[in-house]
């Protein structure tokens, strides 16, 4: 990338970002046309800033400034570091699919074991057949940029009726410092299938990297899905993740996200309940310290009648960190008997910690039960004193109460091994406070 050009102005630098990468982006001419169009959308909109309503609390122009150049394909040293990271962050028993700096690495993945249970291709292999992979109903600047720049991803399809015994874990590993990785994946879950999908974001020695990931999920009727996301990035990283989930009828969908790293992170989820009788449970946990900024934005769209959605968002905010939760529940005119609730609970561990909470209900049907609530506060002094009077030092007493607070969300993860894994990540976050 031409650094001199990058400094002359953001407009020039931005198109340079694309032209310098274009040769490495997979897809033939049809795909290239879609990418170019997406990139034009991004150029027109620019990095989101506070005057864009959806990005009001997460001004990427102020927080991030610029998009870093595309990471080079990982070399042998990078892959070695990645292999170590896989060992450290793999869930025992899970089928792993590993992306290093946005490139799928078969050697680190369990492709063979997975083949017996699910269809698998990389994005790179699939794009020419399905350019629709780059298209989504909702488009914002970061989603458009993802479509333009996505280098790879996983395309998974779980057959009707398949009962997956082990979780599938998609592990994103950053090894390249001061570079961006763009990935896009698609997960199709068949009718009546049961599956646990985990996405993990971690670094292997990389600093100041940027992630822009997108996942398209479609869930067939009667499926039972646990979708767990663990954003455990390096402290100076940026991670913008977009999720598009379309849910069929009579589905149970348990969505869980925990953010325990990154200087700036944003998870934006667009979940559409498109079939009747489905239940969506979405739990978010932000554990933030130092000057970290973590944003969870969820749009739950009740497009049909008789669905239940429950969103509970918890944040533990230390130092001068800033947590954002934006939750919108849309109830379409036909979506009678919708039962949609969201709740935000913030635990502020310092006077300078900040929590922003924006719940929105857009209700166009008349026979519904919807609502939202919020609580925010410090740890309870009387509980802290009880623990201290029994010998626990201040930080350890706080840690027990924070664990209890976060534990209420983690408890909802049904798989024992996975739950223990998530508890471990939360505990490591707590240790970083000591």
């Amino acid at each position, binding site marked *: 990338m031409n650094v001199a050009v990058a400094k002359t102005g953001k407009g020039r630098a931005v198109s340079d970002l694309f032209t310098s990468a274009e040769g490495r982006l997979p897809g033939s001419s049809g795909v290239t046309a879609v990418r170019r169009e997406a990139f034009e959308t991004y150029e027109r909109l620019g990095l989101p800033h506070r005057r864009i309503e959806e990005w009001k609390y997460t001004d990427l122009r102020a927080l991030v400034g610029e998009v870093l150049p595309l990471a080079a394909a990982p070399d042998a040293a990078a892959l070695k570091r990645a292999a170590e990271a896989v060992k450290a962050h793999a869930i025992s028993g899970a089928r792993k699919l590993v992306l290093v700096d946005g490139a799928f690495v078969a050697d680190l993945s369990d492709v063979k074991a997975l083949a017996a249970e699910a269809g698998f291709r990389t994005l790179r292999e699939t794009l020419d057949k399905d350019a629709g992979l780059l298209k989504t109903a909702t488009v914002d600047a970061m989603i458009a940029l993802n479509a333009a720049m996505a280098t790879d991803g996983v395309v998974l399809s779980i057959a009707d009726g398949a009962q997956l015994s082990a979780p599938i874990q998609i592990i994103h590993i950053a090894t390249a410092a001061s570079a961006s990785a763009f990935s896009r994946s698609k997960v199709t879950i068949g009718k009546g299938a049961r599956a646990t999908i985990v996405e993990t974001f971690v670094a292997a020695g990389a600093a100041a990297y940027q992630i822009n990931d997108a996942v398209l999920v479609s869930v067939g009727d009667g499926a039972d899905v646990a979708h767990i996301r663990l954003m455990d990035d390096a402290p100076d990283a940026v991670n913008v993740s977009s999720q598009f989930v379309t849910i069929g009828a009579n589905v149970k969908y348990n969505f869980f996200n925990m953010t325990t790293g990154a200087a700036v992170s944003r998870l934006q989820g667009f979940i559409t309940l498109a079939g009747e009788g489905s239940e969506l449970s979405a739990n978010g946990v932000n554990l933030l310290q130092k000057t970290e900024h973590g944003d969870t934005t969820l749009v739950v769209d009740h497009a049909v009648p008789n669905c239940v959605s429950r969103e509970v968002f918890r944040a533990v905010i230390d130092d001068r960190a800033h947590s954002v939760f934006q939750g919108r529940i849309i109830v379409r005119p036909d979506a009678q008997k919708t039962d949609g609730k969201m709740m935000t609970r913030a635990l502020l561990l310092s006077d300078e910690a900040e929590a922003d909470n924006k719940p929105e209900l857009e209700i166009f049907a008349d026979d519904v039960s919807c609502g939202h609530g919020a609580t925010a506060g410090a740890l309870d002094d*009387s509980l802290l004193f009880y*623990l*201290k009077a029994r*010998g*626990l030092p201040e930080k350890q007493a706080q840690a*027990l109460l924070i*664990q*209890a607070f976060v534990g209420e969300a983690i408890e909802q993860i049904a798989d024992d091994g996975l739950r223990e894994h998530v508890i471990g990540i939360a505990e490591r976050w707590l240790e970083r406070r000591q």
Partner: protein
Amino acid sequence: MALLEVKDLKVRVEEREILHGLTLTVNEGEIHAIMGPNGSGKSTLSHVIAGKPGYEVTDGQILFKGEDLLEMSPDERAAKGVFLAFQYPVEIPGVATMNFLRTALNAQRKARGEDEYSTPDFLKKVREVSKSLNIPQDMLKRGVNVGFSGGEKKRNEVLQMALFEPSLCILDEMDSGLDIDALRIAADGVNALRSPKRSMVVITHYQRLLNYIVPDVVHVMSKGRVVKSGGKELALELEASGYAQFEDAA
């Protein structure tokens, strides 16, 4: 030898003086009872000894084993052997009792430079103690005090006392809210902990508790001071005549 020496202690809460120069000495192995009307400052004294924030000590001192207790954080006091059984034990949802007991016990041992308990040793000890106090094992799986009855909460306090083996136990109205059987079980638990090395301060309104836990010394507190001290017969006297005679003295 004096274990606890409270000397001319003056304490304020929110600009109001509650203890007006309180003096109390508890020797090793002794059991002291503190009685006194509502609002006389008994719980305040116990909180200040345990190190609860929100109290301003404006004068006087508290020595524990000769050391300045007021200089120590609450957890340091606990590790040194101060234990306060609360009048109103709090409920802590999401913190399993077993996990709490182990964490607290090991934190105290670590602070004293002792080895942490191994899991089997710890479990054995908890099982022994909880059995003697009639505490079912499944209660220990629940959150600390969550959904416990009044009596169960008090028994859980005695359980911790037995587990932590403190040298000073302050029992703030451990008899309140207990039925006669529960009182006897809790009192038996306390009596089992009597030892020449361990002192107790029993705060109560009722002589009945002192039938079970027989004190060496009885103090009467009124309006933030100890106004009279005597033997165990003083409690009987109070039961008969009430506190009116001390109101003027205070």
